[in-house]
């Protein structure tokens, strides 16, 4: 008789689970290393840690955790709405922005639909597409970034969603505001464009698209953001999306009633208000990016110019270099699952963490 697990649709059984960056404790166990000596530059986390204001808010929120969270996320939605000059019914909260991406897929996709995204774009786009039984249309990248003309041409009558990561993970490439606007003007109105801006805070102001202005013009646009990167709250799991009230209302129908925990809500409100921390995070990232890319250039390792908090570089045998890094207590991100077997992605850390990465890299190449 057919096992129940085998009744899962083929498109579910075909999913290869997402591979996260290797945890520090796991490496310590595997290699017999001291956890404190390990440098983790694998998951694009914020090396400054928590924003001080978020830390204070977390401690204040600790006494009330036996009660269920505010399922409507009133305070956080109000803070986001005020910061981005949208109405509260245009704000959707997620258990990390990954939850947002899944909710969008679950709300708008069914078997027979198709989804357009770029080669080398964030791994979760094909995962959520597959999970709903929709068909992925992966468009070849141009210089490791989105080829918007080709993506536009790839849209079919069955296409319901287009995912765009800007800046893109894992390549760090950027779509300029003008090109993005032209794309939005050309996309059919019945196709939802999901603009994933997980790394947007790292951009210089002149490189940032006026997405709030775009939202007013394009009812088929959803902008996804996260508190896991520049805001330093990856462990708390909170992200949000901005879109038309109609789109947000529809997605709220499939959202879990209590999807964002109380600590995350409190910390996110405080983090939005911690301008000083954000400025320090962005400045540190700029310095770290210079430190790393100078070293890569000096070592003749080609890299993809990045606008985010990581940089992807090319080496002959990335798997061998990766295991050398691991043996020496440095965790970076291999990209074989992105079909980039000769590349590694390194997150930008503190100055001394970057220096350790460079030191091990130099030793490996010697």
């Amino acid at each position, binding site marked *: *008789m*057919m*096992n*129940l*697990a085998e*009744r*899962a649709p083929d498109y579910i059984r075909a999913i290869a*689970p997402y591979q*996260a960056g290797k*945890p*520090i*404790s*796991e490496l310590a166990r595997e290699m017999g290393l001291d956890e404190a000596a390990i440098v*983790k530059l694998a998951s694009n*986390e*914020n090396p*400054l*840690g*928590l924003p001080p204001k978020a*830390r204070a808010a977390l*401690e204040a*929120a600790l*006494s*009330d*955790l*036996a*009660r*269920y*969270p*505010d*399922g*409507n996320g009133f305070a956080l939605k109000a803070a986001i709405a005020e910061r981005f000059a949208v109405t509260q019914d245009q704000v959707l909260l997620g*258990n*990390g922005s*990954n*939850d947002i991406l899944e909710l969008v897929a679950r709300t*708008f*996709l069914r078997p027979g639909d198709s989804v357009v995204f770029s080669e080398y774009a964030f791994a*979760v786009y094909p995962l959520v597409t597959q999970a709903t039984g929709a068909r992925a249309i992966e468009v070849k990248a141009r210089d490791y970034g989105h080829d918007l003309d080709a993506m536009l041409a790839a849209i079919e009558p069955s296409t319901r969603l287009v995912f765009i990561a800007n800046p893109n993970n894992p390549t760090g490439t950027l779509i300029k505001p003008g090109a993005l606007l032209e794309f939005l003007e050309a996309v059919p109105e019945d196709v939802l464009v999901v603009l994933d801006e997980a790394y947007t805070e790292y951009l210089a102001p002149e490189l940032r698209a006026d997405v709030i202005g775009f939202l007013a013009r394009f009812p088929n646009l959803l902008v996804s953001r996260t508190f*896991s990167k520049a805001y*330093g*709250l*990856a*462990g*708390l*799991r909170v992200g949000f999306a901005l879109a038309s009230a109609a789109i947000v*209302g*529809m997605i709220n*129908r*499939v959202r*879990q*009633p*209590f*999807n*964002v*925990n*109380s*600590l*995350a809500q409190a*910390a996110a409100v405080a983090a939005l208000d911690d301008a000083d921390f954000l400025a320090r995070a962005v400045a540190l990232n700029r310095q770290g990016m210079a430190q790393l890319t100078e070293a890569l250039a000096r070592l003749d390792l080609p890299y993809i110019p990045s606008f985010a908090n990581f940089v992807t570089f090319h080496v002959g045998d990335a798997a061998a270099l990766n295991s050398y890094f691991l043996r020496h207590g440095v965790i970076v991100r291999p990209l074989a699952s992105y079909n980039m077997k000769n590349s590694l992605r390194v997150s930008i850390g503190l100055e001394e963490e970057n220096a350790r990465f460079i030191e091990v890299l130099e030793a490996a190449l010697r």
Partner: protein
Amino acid sequence: MDRRTLLKSSGLFMGALGLSTLASRAAIAAPAQAATQGSAVFIPSAKTPLLLNFNENSLGMSPKAQAAIINELPAAFRYPDDARAALISTLAKGNGLSDKQITLGNGSSEVIQMAIHAYCGKGTQLVCPDPTFNYAELYAEPMGTTITKVKLQKDTLAIDLKAMRAATEKFAGVSVVYLCNPNNPTATITPAADIEAWINSAPERVFFIVDEAYHEYVTDPRYASAARLVQAGKKNLIVARTFSKIYALAGLRIGYGLAAPEIIARLDTWASIDNTNLPAAIAANASLQDTAFIRQSLSTTAQSRKIVTQALDELKLAYLPSHANFIFHRVNSSSAAYRENMKKLHIMVGRPFDHTDGWNRLTLGTPAEMQAFVKALKTLRQQNLA
């Protein structure tokens, strides 16, 4: 009907029963706990209402869990993979299972959602008691699943397993059976022998979600966790548990599921990546090891149950045997009027459940809180309102 239309048509239902009623309590939630802790007398007021409506643990979390969170807060800028792995390992050992037989959820509600997404849809059936905790239905309904609700038995309000089983036998496609044990809102148990007999003999096309949110409170020997069926290698069920009840971590959102490795692998494709946050995983792990806190929660709940049942006996209000941190009892008015009258005294009790007008679900808080409740109940009785 396409999926968008389907979502639209189900939206009112979801909105009315799901998001709005569950979420609207937020405005009144915050101040109660500080007033509750450490005081012998609890005086409900507009500023410190008494919250006996969501089956939360009024004691607050284990001190060890709180210390563990504070200790790990500086690491909250990292993704929670390490803490999740450690919790899975503790849960596996504690339940006599392997790591591959555990999944974590953003609350046990996400575990239920994962199972519904994996097994339900058009051409399938969800069979659930009526009334019961309604999330399985909330998730299954918009997917086009046939929902078959089986009324509780007339006098005992026990789950009618025979009628539920008959519903699965009449349906040719896949049936998902949702069993809440102890059941919510009645706090009654379904004997392990009956559940096991069915799960052991059910045809392949029937899958069981056994929701054991209140498992830790049960002392009755007729009860046993369905986890022992998972231990025995059964592949047609998942057991859902939560840290929101006895462990007092409702605000952190963490629950887990126990099932065969291939079931867990299948469900995990429906779980959001990193679905449980770092403080939740840290606190859950510490809570599991704080046996003193669990003993304290059990003993205060037993004291509170006694305070309430004595008063109900005195006032001649019938109640069902309570095997959880809440009790289902009669009121001498409509349930809605009773809730409103209690609310005027700054006490939040119950919420609406189908087919049970004249009954109320009451959370068992601390003994001091229950004394305040009894005082209010007697006040209402003097006014002929309860």
